[in-house]
């Protein structure tokens, strides 16, 4: 017995005591740490032979002093199998505070690059993002540089010639047999049905032309039909052909809406040793404002975080990942009468939470089956406690009774991948129509009232409407929040621009999603960078517009 007791004490001392000590020490407020600034850019002309792009991150203290010997990790936002950060690699900063890494993009187009510094002794963590355009995919393979290189190069030509030779021989055989037989054929008897094509004396240029006319007509018809089918007629809708696709839509093109970035709460926080803390947010998606508290939906971890008075995240609710209250991958939340309503995709339930994190109830939705699994992307609750949910997979918005019973469906036919929802002071429903790059307003009965943003929005995600009717739309394509007057006029963008070290302006919102507005404050959840609070300085502008 004594031996067992001694072993248990040893296990406790060796295992738990250091862990406890670490937790206690970690929770203790450390010394005031120096704020760090991380900026990421692509140096001009820094393209490698393989089509790779040089990524450069510069880390400095708040006073501009470069920080060398720090580890910077580069990520790329991947949407394959859900949104997540794909680690590209790590690099150490040199004496100028610069860390560099070569990105070899696997696809052409837009790439969201994130650089993170986890913090260190006396230094705060920092994050920077960069939107990169690559023109063409690089070669993902290297040709063998050995003796077979030349045969490999010429083999297609060799085989191509062989195929042409075979076709040539077949054509020659046909021509020779046809001509040979026709040459020895008797002249047609006057009473017989004339052989118009191949009989002797009638094998003329016009008959050959008639022979060739049919296949030529076929080819001439097939080519435009094929072109039509592959360029939009039968294939995926062409981006340019979608109504409302923005052709402008860059920060430089669109005016800014007057707003001041008051506070940013980074998604990633680190402890004193620079390790990422457990209460860091992993792809937060939405937020809600209840009794002056800001609650954030931590999507990839399936939990609820509260923003503390110190501007940090604290865990409020941690869902059972497989249970009926699971919030895993939930992207839509709203508050109503002091309760939080979260549309959870795992079972299609609406989980109702108190701000303290206690589960009030679970609304089990009874939605008519669509062509694809039900996928909630937006949620709103009206005055009668009915719940509205946008089903992005089935291009519809459904309304449900407080107990989850199906009431009605709106938007059938005029919505494409609906996203966030909001209800304005008049009880009208605002729906983000992501596929059509618009935001649409519906009467409570389902009638379409208006559609806005066709010329400005690129990838709208969520919507909020203030008491005066001003509409705020988060747009991941614009990397900003677009503001529209109550009359639908576009007023400008809120991006919280920050200066990069290469002199270019960069958005503080690399991937804005959830957006809420309260009096003159705009709260935005960015899926990469965290929560940002803006003071709206444009009230006068809005009044002026009206």
């Amino acid at each position, binding site marked *: 017995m004594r031996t067992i007791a001694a072993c248990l004490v040893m296990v406790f001392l060796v295992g738990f005591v250091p862990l406890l000590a670490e937790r206690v020490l970690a929770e203790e407020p450390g010394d005031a740490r120096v704020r760090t600034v991380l900026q990421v850019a692509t140096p001009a002309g820094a393209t490698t032979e393989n089509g790779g792009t040089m990524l450069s991150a510069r880390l400095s203290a708040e006073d501009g002093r470069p920080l060398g010997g720090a580890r910077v990790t580069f990520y790329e936002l991947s949407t394959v199998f859900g949104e997540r950060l794909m680690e590209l690699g790590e690099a150490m900063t040199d004496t100028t505070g610069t860390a560099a890494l070569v990105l070899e993009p696997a696809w052409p187009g837009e790439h969201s690059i994130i650089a993170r510094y986890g913090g260190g002794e006396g230094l705060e963590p920092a994050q920077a993002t960069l939107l990169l355009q690559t023109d063409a995919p690089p070669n993902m393979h290297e040709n063998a540089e050995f003796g077979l290189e030349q045969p490999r190069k010429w083999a297609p030509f060799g085989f191509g010639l062989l195929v042409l030779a075979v*076709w040539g021989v077949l054509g020659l*055989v*046909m021509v020779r047999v046809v001509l*040979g037989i026709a040459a020895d*054929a008797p002249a047609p008897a006057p009473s017989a049905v004339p052989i118009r094509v191949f009989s002797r004396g009638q094998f003329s240029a016009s008959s050959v032309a008639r022979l060739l006319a049919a296949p030529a007509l076929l080819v001439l018809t097939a080519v435009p039909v094929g072109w039509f089918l592959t360029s939009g007629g*039968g*294939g995926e809708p062409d981006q340019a052909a979608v109504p409302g696709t923005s052709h402008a839509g860059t920060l430089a093109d669109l005016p800014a809406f007057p707003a001041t970035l008051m506070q940013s709460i980074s998604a990633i926080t680190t402890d004193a040793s620079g390790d990422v803390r457990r209460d860091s947010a992993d792809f937060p998606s939405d937020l809600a404002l209840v009794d002056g508290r800001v609650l954030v939906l931590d999507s990839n971890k399936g939990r609820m975080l509260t923003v503390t008075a110190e501007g940090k995240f604290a865990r409020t609710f941690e869902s059972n990942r497989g249970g009926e209250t699971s919030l895993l991958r939930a992207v839509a939340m709203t508050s109503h009468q002091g309760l939080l309503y979260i549309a959870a995709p795992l079972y299609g339930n609406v989980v109702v939470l108190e701000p303290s994190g206690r589960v009030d109830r679970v609304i089990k939705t009874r939605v008519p089956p669509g062509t694809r699994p039900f996928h909630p992307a937006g949620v709103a609750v009206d005055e009668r406690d009915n719940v509205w949910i946008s089903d992005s997979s089935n291009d519809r918005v459904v309304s449900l009774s407080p107990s989850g019973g199906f009431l009605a469906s709106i938007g059938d036919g005029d919505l494409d991948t609906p996203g966030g929802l909001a209800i304005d002071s008049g009880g009208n429903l605002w729906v983000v129509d992501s596929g059509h790059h618009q935001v649409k307003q519906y009467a409570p009965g389902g009638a379409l009232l208006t559609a806005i943003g066709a010329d400005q929005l690129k990838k709208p995600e969520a919507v909020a409407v203030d008491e005066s009717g001003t509409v705020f739309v988060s747009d991941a394509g614009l990397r900003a929040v677009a503001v529209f007057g109550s009359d639908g006029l576009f007023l400008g963008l809120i991006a919280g621009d920050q200066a990069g070290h290469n002199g270019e302006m960069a958005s503080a919102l690399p991937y804005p999603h959830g957006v809420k507005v309260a009096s003159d404050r705009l709260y935005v959840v960015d899926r990469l960078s965290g929560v940002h609070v803006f003071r709206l300085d444009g009230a006068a502008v809005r009044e002026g517009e009206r």
Partner: protein
Amino acid sequence: MVLQHDEKVQLEAAALRPITRPGEYYWVVVGGLSVLVFAAAVAYLQQLKEGLGVTGLNQRVSWGFYIGDMVFFIGISYGGAMTSAILRLTNAPWRAPLSRIAETMAVTSVLVGAVFPLIDMGRPERMVYLFRYGQVGSPVLWDVVAVNTYLIAGAIFLYLPLIPDIAVCRDRLGPSTGKWRYLLYERLALGWQGTEQQKRVLAWGTTVVAILIIPLAVSVHSVLAFLFGVTSRPGWDSTIFAPYFVLGAMFSGVATVIIAVAGFRWAYHLEEYITRKHFEYLGYIMMTLGAGYGYFMFSEYMTEGYKLHEGARDMMELMIVGRLAPFMWLFGIGGLVVPILLVALPVTRNIFGITTAAVAVLAAMWLKRFLIVVPGLAEPMMPTPLVIYWPSRVEIMITLGAVAAIPLLMMLFFRLFPIISIFEIEEVAEEDAKRTAEALHQAVP
């Protein structure tokens, strides 16, 4: 011996019988086969409307019945063309009554087989991307080029020996056969009168195409094999795959020729021209090819099974003692051993026995295609469970429709053109007479 006038008249009557008097059950059979083809078309329309989700295909096993069907149908086509071409080039006189059925079977089955890649695509209109963005280094592009070239060559190979017989239709059936049909015969006969010059040109063209079609058919099935062989999947990663496929195609093709010949012989009363001798010769060829196929299979499994690399080990276990073992052993015994015995043993070496053996070979070779295509994809390459594939009702209906389409197309073709080659039978008889005369001349100076 040159055919006498009444023999020639009898031959022409027999060859033209499916055109003039197809029989009271002709339209019943055509109707029955059409129903199956129509059901397949309806099933395909459902697939086109709802997507590949209506099939049993899944993310892992993306090739199932459809690709197995493609390999199978193109394979049997190859057997038809090879039988006719090789026998023609080796001047085997017994080939003459069989060649038309073999060549028609070759063209119809490749037509049916070539449709399956389109059926396997959820968005068939995107086939045009193959021509817009085709990669020269991709076996898929090689496959399209090879199959289409082979199809054109097969059609020419069918058409050239048909010219004199079309002229027979033109001359014997006359304008009474109907304006459009007569016009068709007139045009396709090219003014054939059977002059020496015409015979010389036709013999030259037929010989060239017969020479060409053998490597073409080999290339088609080699390329089909490369679709699998160049893919790093357990069971496919084999250097023997191309000749293995070629031999398998010939094996199943000869079996199909036997079944088709037996069927049309019975239906159109061709017993006088297609005799037990023809079945025995075809049976010997099938038996030899079967033995060769068994040897290739043994060689493949011996090489893989001795090393037992990780993927191959699981595959071997699955096929020999695992879940697919009943199918594999059914193929080995029912598709190789039993048919070889049926042909080898004198007591069963008759038309019924050989035809039974051919049916067993054909069914077993279809099963073998399934066993090549599906387990190679189902077997995981990462530590994940084995994925089960089972065809849906749609896939089964489309496959049955394709099986029905081949005899249907052949019956419709023989409603227009002679089922046996009158010209070749006459030609063989003339050559036979020449040889006899020469032998007599040498024996009696």
